[in-house]
């Protein structure tokens, strides 16, 4: 068992739903309520020190309940460790607190997750579309968005 997951479970016994280390990647599925606290703990705990937020993305597990997942990938420069934190969100209420206060660099990742999956990051300073244009309707990476459904900005309709 990895030290990261141990520390995490010790500190937040009620919030960690499950953990695994498949393929050598430490992973923890946590509840969304205290996500900012958990991330700040991972960053600040002297034994962990995850100072890089490498990646954030959403995943759409259409047909499962809860439907959406937010995935954080963290890296610790000093300990040379990685961890993956996952949070499940329900379709009717895909809302999670923003982590911009913990890592300013996570800002655009959250905007991308909103743009692509429609996941709302509560308290985000500027939650706007980032890759698509403002007039675009829907969230293209959701599994129920047809791959070639176009919304042309100009030119003949297809």
């Amino acid at each position, binding site marked *: 068992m990895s030290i990261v997951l141990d520390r995490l479970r010790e500190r937040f016994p009620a919030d960690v739903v499950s953990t695994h280390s*498949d*393929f*050598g*990647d430490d*992973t923890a599925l946590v509840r969304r309520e205290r996500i900012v606290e958990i991330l700040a703990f991972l960053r600040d705990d002297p034994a962990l020190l995850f*100072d*890089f*937020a*490498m*990646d954030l*993305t959403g*995943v*759409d597990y259409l047909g499962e309940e809860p439907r959406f997942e937010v*995935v954080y*990938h963290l890296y610790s*420069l000093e300990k*040379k460790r*990685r961890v*993956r934190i996952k949070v499940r969100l329900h379709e009717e209420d895909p809302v999670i607190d923003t982590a911009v206060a913990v*890592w*300013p*660099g*996570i*800002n*655009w*990742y959250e905007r991308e997750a909103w743009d*692509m999956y429609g996941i709302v990051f509560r308290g985000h300073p500027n939650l706007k*579309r*980032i*890759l*698509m*244009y403002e007039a675009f309707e829907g969230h*293209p*990476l959701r599994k129920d968005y047809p*791959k070639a459904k176009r919304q042309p900005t100009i030119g003949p309709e297809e």
Partner: protein
Amino acid sequence: MAEPVDITANGGTPDLQAEPMLINIGPSHPATHATLRFQAKLDGETILDLVPEFGYLHRGFEKESEAATWTQVVPYTDRLNYVSPLMNNVGYAMAVEKLCGIEITDRCKYVRVIISELSRIIDHMVCIGTNMVDLGALTNFWYFWKPREEVYFLIEELCGQRLTTSYTRIGGAMADLPAGWTDRVLAVCRGVIPECIADVNALLTKNRIFIERTMGVGPITAKDAIALGFTGPCLRAAGVPLDLRKDEPYLVYDRFDFDIPIGEAGDTCDRYLVRMEEMRQSLRIIEQAIAQLPGGPIDIDDPRFILPSKELVYGNIEALMNHFKFIMEGVKVPAGEVYSATEAANGELGFYIVSRGGGGPYKIKVRPPCFPLFQGIPHLVKGQMIADLIATLGSVNIIAGELDR
């Protein structure tokens, strides 16, 4: 007619601090590499605020790959960072192999190192070359273009295409190295590239104009760079020696002797110097890798992942069926999720892959190195001159293909 300005109104001194000016730069602007856009708020020439915008090259990589088989994704990865496509191929193949639990052959590992380092060199060349074009020093670009063409000839020999390589396969490569290829690589690495690096070095590194134009321009501290998620040469220029080739040695990087250059101020000049030194280090790695290159097969010996050879396909019904299933359904990859990171030319290139079994990926997320770098641009240039924006933007090397995906 404009109103005449009454300079006596303000006690004799004209009020030059008028309203801030809003200016739009891009998306089609020679210095924004065609698809980036900024809205700048200027006071005179000083940047008060900067809002980057992108997405003008969003091509739906993730949606496309969700509809493709595992092998069909490889060509899409070429188009992420099209300046060094071989490195993306390697990153993707490693991620899938991690998911399948494949241990590739030693020869394949060395080949992947060689092609990665060649790509790193040409990537840095384009970065420095175009950066200098933006600053008005066109000559360097031509000096760097010559070795690039030489490397393109090598790549074309290797995989049949200059740019869109699609060289790696899950568990190996498209083909083994052509005969005598390594000698030609060595000839280019010894005869052409060092000379061009030396030329550009002589033109720039001690050039007064260059130094004035880049030193102290677009600086960042190590702490801010980490908080913003910078990786690669931009982070190392700020003095943080993070390089996955050393810190999480993948392939066979732990068998080579090379150094990680770091800078101090994290400014444009440091980024340039770090890139120049990295090219020299990459040459060292290539030399050692070719010296140690083992023989043997390049593909693993596992019919679950590797296509049967053409002779078998044409002469054997079982192989033919196997081939057919392979192409139509794709490689069977077990269910699970992995994140695999490699050190690309711009920084950490990560692939987060979710598989639910079956022939294609359920979800692929690329962590492009440019993404946080581009996010950090306002931080780098706020309070500086508008012309410094151009110098800074060129030096962090934003590749729209992987930024927008």
